[in-house]
């Protein structure tokens, strides 16, 4: 089960690793008596592709949900580029520059691929009530611009031919790509990806990895939860490891791989 392979190195851009994009401090979230996230602290630096790994039920998705504003943390603080976002509404967190994808892709099934991506475009005046009446030209201009941006990202992830198809016809891997496009269309500063490789065929996975690296080169930071160690080791630096709600290791691929606590956690033992 536990195999770390180092197949190919994606060059990292250490040059603009400066300052914190995401700062998590003493984050805690309980479900009843279950401490899903239990006092976790770490940083994602600007321009990084950070990884978050850990066995099933470690609390990774729960941490994402706290950061994205879906859950209100019980304790701790979350700071995005200097601004507190913990406990803020999801739409505000989104507006502050954070986009996410889901572990199980969740498109709007009846909507077309284009429409699915369009809903992710932020600051559309047409979504506000009064603007439709008092600024119709602005609404029309915003909509045209949103379409252009959405199409560009749909092409970028290679779904151009399926633009008008309803999202329900997409395959699992295509849904992952759709989510990536929907997250990226917001021009986020930080993207949280929850298992982008799960259920994706190897060829498509190579493409997703390529895309992530390329988007990152344009300046977007990532935090990626992933069970595919190959992908994590190639793409992510640094790597945070969680088990039973706690952060048990944090560092580059080599140090994490050699960390006995990590190996122990993966092999099914309790946290040392």
């Amino acid at each position, binding site marked *: 089960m536990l195999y770390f392979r180092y197949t190919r190195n994606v060059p990292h851009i250490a040059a603009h690793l400066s300052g914190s994009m995401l700062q998590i401090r003493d984050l805690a979230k309980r479900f009843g008596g279950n401490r899903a996230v239990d006092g976790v602290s770490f940083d994602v630096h600007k321009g990084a592709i950070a990884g978050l790994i850990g066995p099933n039920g470690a609390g990774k998705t729960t941490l994402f949900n706290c950061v994205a504003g879906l859950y209100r943390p019980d304790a701790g603080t979350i700071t995005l580029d200097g601004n507190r976002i913990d406990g803020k509404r999801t739409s505000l967190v989104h507006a502050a520059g954070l986009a996410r994808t889901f572990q199980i892709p*969740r498109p709007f*099934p009846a909507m077309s691929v284009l429409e699915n991506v369009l809903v992710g475009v932020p600051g559309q005046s047409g*979504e*506000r*009530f009064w603007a439709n009446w008092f600024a119709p030209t602005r609404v029309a201009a915003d909509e045209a611009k*949103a379409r252009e941006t959405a199409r560009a990202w749909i092409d970028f992830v290679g779904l151009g031919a399926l633009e008008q198809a309803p999202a329900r016809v997409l395959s699992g891997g295509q849904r992952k790509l759709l989510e990536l496009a929907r997250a990226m269309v*917001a021009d986020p500063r930080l993207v949280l990806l929850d298992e982008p490789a799960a259920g994706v065929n190897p060829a498509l996975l190579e493409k997703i990895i390529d895309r992530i690296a390329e988007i990152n080169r344009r300046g977007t930071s990532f935090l990626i939860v992933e069970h595919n160690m190959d992908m994590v080791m190639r793409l992510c630096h640094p790597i945070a490891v969680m088990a039973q709600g706690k952060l048990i290791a944090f560092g580059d691929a080599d140090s994490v791989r050699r960390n006995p606590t990590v190996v122990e956690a993966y092999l099914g033992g309790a946290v040392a």
Partner: protein
Amino acid sequence: MILQIIADGLIVGSTIALGAIGLTMTYSLLRFANFAHGEFIAWGAYLALTFLGFFIALGGGGAMAPLGPFSFGWQLLAALVAGAIATAILALVLDWLLFDRLSAQGSAIVLTIASFGAALALRNFLQFVYGTLPAYYTRELQIAIHIVPRDVGGGLRATPDQLFVLALALVLVVGLHLFLQRTTAGRAMRAVAHNPALARVTGIDVASVVRWTWILGAILAAVAGTFAGLVGQLRPQIGFDLLLPLFAAAILGGIGSVPGAVIGGLIVGLAESAAVPLIGAEYRAAAAFGVLIAILLVRPQGLFAERAK
């Protein structure tokens, strides 16, 4: 005979459809059955009556000069618009006072019961303000015109007012459909209806979408109420009486589906008008109930189930 039944059914059905659209939209966005929706219909009808008096006085008083073949003048059209706007404001106030606060902590059942209470309060207040006697927008008597002669399918007669109601209902339904499919706000509404949590994560301002829903639902309800008053009479129970047909239509169409609510409304209207010669006029209201029971037994998700499970 048969053509007449169909025509009557479509006219009643178009009113039910307009009301059911609002009901299905609030249900799919806010996840509760809003029993107060019927009172938006009643209040819309009566507010239009008040505005009608105002516009007639504005035009110098006296009788309203009818427009062409219709029984009403421009004043009623102006009153329709003003009544719809006032009803939208009423819905927003109710949301702000009640539903918005309760939905922050409450469950669907709490909201449903609250809407029941709101319905009672609104109806009693309506009776207090307007009294319980039937009222009319116009005393003008309308002669039904022959559209199809008697020897074809039993003939078909309708008043110009009825045709106006049918045509305007069609325009509103098509307009709403285009709004939902073509505009940014419509897209946001569909997204929230499908999956509110996901819509939030993609940055949609759900509060604003909810406001849109109340406004559109209340406008359509007010128009439905005014239509009911125009082709029949105004009574304080007008909304309450329509509640069962509205729910039957919304559930028949599939909760959350706007086209479903329209089709459902027309089917319930047809069932009601077919019930008159079949089982007698006094059991007309039972037809909607029969339709509702039948769907719940046969296809509880409705004809056009929209929401992802």
